């Protein structure tokens, strides 16, 4: 607010001084010019008081007339001058004020101060999202669905205007500003006690790096998630201590490789990081054999590296013949049928259309499908707006970098145990993944489950902590899997990971005993999560699932029961 006030004062200097001078000159004239009485005799001029009164009502165009007595001609002449002068003075002042309010710099100062006040007032934990393009947009909608709060900083005004029109559950402060500037981050609550993390999701790796650096130096306590599309920038971010670096191309490359060599664990991965509530993708797994990659950019590089490690036979189409030493490169854009034939598409097993142009990718994929209808096609979709086109084309895999980043960030934010689980799960064989998948299908259903972690502590599991404080009390994991309404029934969820003092174990069994401080990762339906929360927080529900007793909660009732027993 301070800066807005000072801007107004500073801009109003000239008009205010003009007004003061006009008033002074007008009053002075009136107290010097002699009046006249009814008989034509000169009378003394107006006093200061009357002159001020006259100028006040004349300048404000109220115009009471000639007070206290009829004017002489000389006074009338001066009154005319006064009228014109004062109208000019007021007009100038009002125009200056109006110009000030339509001034961009002023509006920005106003918006910034309003934004800062809204951020200051946030009382719940929130995330600071820098960059609200496609990725940021997806992410904030997901955060909103999960009931989390966030503050948005975005460089492009149109995006912020769109955000303001959207209907979020919570108040969402947003600001048009450059997030790579430390002042902007501070304004957006970087040092706010409730700030839980910063997400650097702008389209520019440089800006993301700048944000990571600023966060590390200005508030080292909070985590920062960075999106990076270039490997060298990712390395620099890591060097500066960014907690998580999300590179959509690397993530997809690894997933594709995983899909080739371990389809079950790939499906498990895809299932767990998917958007809760959507159906699981049906379809074939990527085949082994001859693969054609169109476009050897950041995406192509990552895919080629991973597929080559899987021992695939790879050929490339790229406008630059020297792009990839060691591989067979056909020069072309991929749209030409001749290039597709030359690279061996009719005999190939798979094709990746991975240029940074959506229309190119679609035409490459369409041409390849004509040549070889059984081809496994992976297309890269760069822009969210083209979603309908890609859906209509229906490739075997559609890669949307913005979705990959959003999902990865969301998983990191909401379930910090999930990345650990996925890392451990990757090391298991495919048999293990198949059996876990089968168990999850049986217990949860076909829909993509929600993942959540539970920590046995006073905040998230008050009843469980109280129970464990009793001597000899034990809390088997199975207690958290039973329905608090009917303990014979199972909740629709599966425990995935158990962490105690840094030790991690995959898929804990029901008879494992829990201790305070343990963390468990579950996957299941939203309803199961809510019921489990009831068990953890409500002593009666916990007592019921553990012992089968319908507990009496009231003090009086409890006393009566014990009195009867005695």
């Amino acid at each position, binding site marked *: 607010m301070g800066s807005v006030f000072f801007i107004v004062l500073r801009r109003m200097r000239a008009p205010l001084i003009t007004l003061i001078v006009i008033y002074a000159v007008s009053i002075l004239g009136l107290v010097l010019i002699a009046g006249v009485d009814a008989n034509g005799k000169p009378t003394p001029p107006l006093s200061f*008081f009357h002159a001020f009164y006259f100028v006040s009502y004349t300048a404000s165009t109220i115009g009471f007339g000639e007070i206290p007595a009829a004017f002489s001609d000389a006074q009338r002449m001066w009154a005319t001058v006064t009228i014109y002068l004062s109208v000019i003075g007021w007009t100038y002042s009002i125009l200056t004020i109006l110009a000030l309010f339509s001034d961009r710099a002023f509006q920005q100062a106003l918006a910034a101060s309003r934004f800062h006040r809204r951020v200051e007032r946030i009382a719940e934990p929130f995330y600071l999202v820098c960059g609200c393009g496609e990725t940021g947009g997806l992410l904030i909608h997901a955060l909103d669905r999960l009931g989390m709060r966030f503050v948005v900083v975005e460089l492009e005004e149109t995006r912020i205007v769109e955000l303001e029109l959207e209907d979020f559950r919570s108040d969402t402060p947003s600001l048009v500003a450059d997030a790579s500037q430390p002042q902007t981050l501070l304004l957006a609550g970087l040092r706010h006690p409730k700030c839980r993390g910063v997400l650097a999701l702008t389209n520019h790796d440089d800006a993301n790096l700048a944000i990571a650096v600023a966060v590390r130096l200005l508030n080292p306590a909070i985590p920062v998630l960075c999106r990076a599309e270039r490997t060298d920038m990712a390395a620099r971010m890591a060097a500066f201590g960014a907690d998580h670096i999300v590179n959509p191309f690397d993530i997809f490359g690894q997933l594709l490789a995983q899909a080739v060599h371990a389809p079950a664990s790939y499906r498990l991965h895809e299932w767990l990081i998917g958007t809760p509530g959507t159906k699981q993708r049906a379809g074939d797994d990527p085949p082994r054999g001859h693969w054609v990659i169109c476009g050897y950019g950041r995406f192509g590089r990552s895919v080629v590296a991973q597929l080559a490690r899987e021992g695939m036979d790879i050929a490339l189409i790229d406008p630059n013949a020297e792009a990839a030493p060691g591989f067979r490169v056909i020069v072309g854009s991929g749209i030409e049928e001749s290039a597709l034939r030359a690279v061996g598409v009719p005999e190939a097993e798979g094709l990746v259309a991975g240029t940074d142009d959506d229309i190119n990718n679609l035409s490459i994929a369409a041409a390849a499908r004509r040549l070889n209808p059984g081809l496994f096609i992976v297309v890269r979709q760069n822009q969210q707006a083209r979603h309908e086109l890609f859906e209509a084309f229906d490739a075997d895999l559609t890669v949307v970098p913005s979705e990959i980043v959003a999902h990865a960030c969301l998983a990191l934010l909401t379930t910090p145990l999930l990345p650990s689980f996925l890392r451990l799960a990757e090391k298991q064989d495919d048999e293990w993944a198949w059996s876990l998948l089968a168990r999850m299908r049986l217990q949860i259903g076909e829909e993509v489950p929600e993942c959540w972690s539970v920590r046995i502590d006073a905040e998230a599991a008050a009843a469980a902590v109280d129970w464990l404080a009793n001597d000899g009390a034990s809390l088997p994991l199975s207690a958290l899997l039973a329905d608090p309404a009917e303990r014979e029934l199972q909740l629709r969820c599966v425990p995935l990971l158990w962490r105690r003092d840094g030790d991690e174990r995959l898929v804990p069994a029901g008879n494992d005993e829990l201790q305070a401080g343990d963390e468990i990762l579950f996957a299941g339906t939203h309803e199961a999560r809510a019921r489990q929360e009831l068990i953890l927080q409500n002593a009666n529900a916990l007592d019921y699932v553990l012992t089968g007793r319908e507990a009496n909660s009231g003090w009086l009732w409890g006393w009566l029961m014990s009195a009867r027993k005695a």
Partner: protein
Amino acid sequence: MNLEKVIFGFFIVLAATLNFGFFVGDIGNPTYHHVYELFAAIVVNLIATVLKFGDRTQIGAIHLATSLVADLQLLAAAGVWAYAVHITGEGMTPSITASVVSLSGGALLANIVSLAILIAETVMMRR
């Protein structure tokens, strides 16, 4: 030389000198205290106040505060004058004159503080 500084200094000093001019002389004698001089002091003080708008520094804030005090005192003096001359019709009796002049004396003190700050600021700059 900075023209802004010249104008700024000019108005602050002029406000103090005009105020002083009105203030000097026998406190109860209206012939020593002309109302034109009070008018000039008020106008120049108001301009000096507006010139001090928008400075975000600590010194700027004190500057503005002293000017506001001087304005308040001078406007009060003008109010007392107008009340006595036009509303009660009492005229400039020695007691009324004394209260008008003593109010302007308060304003003079504020203006002197303002001058002192101006000088201190200039000495601090040493340019």
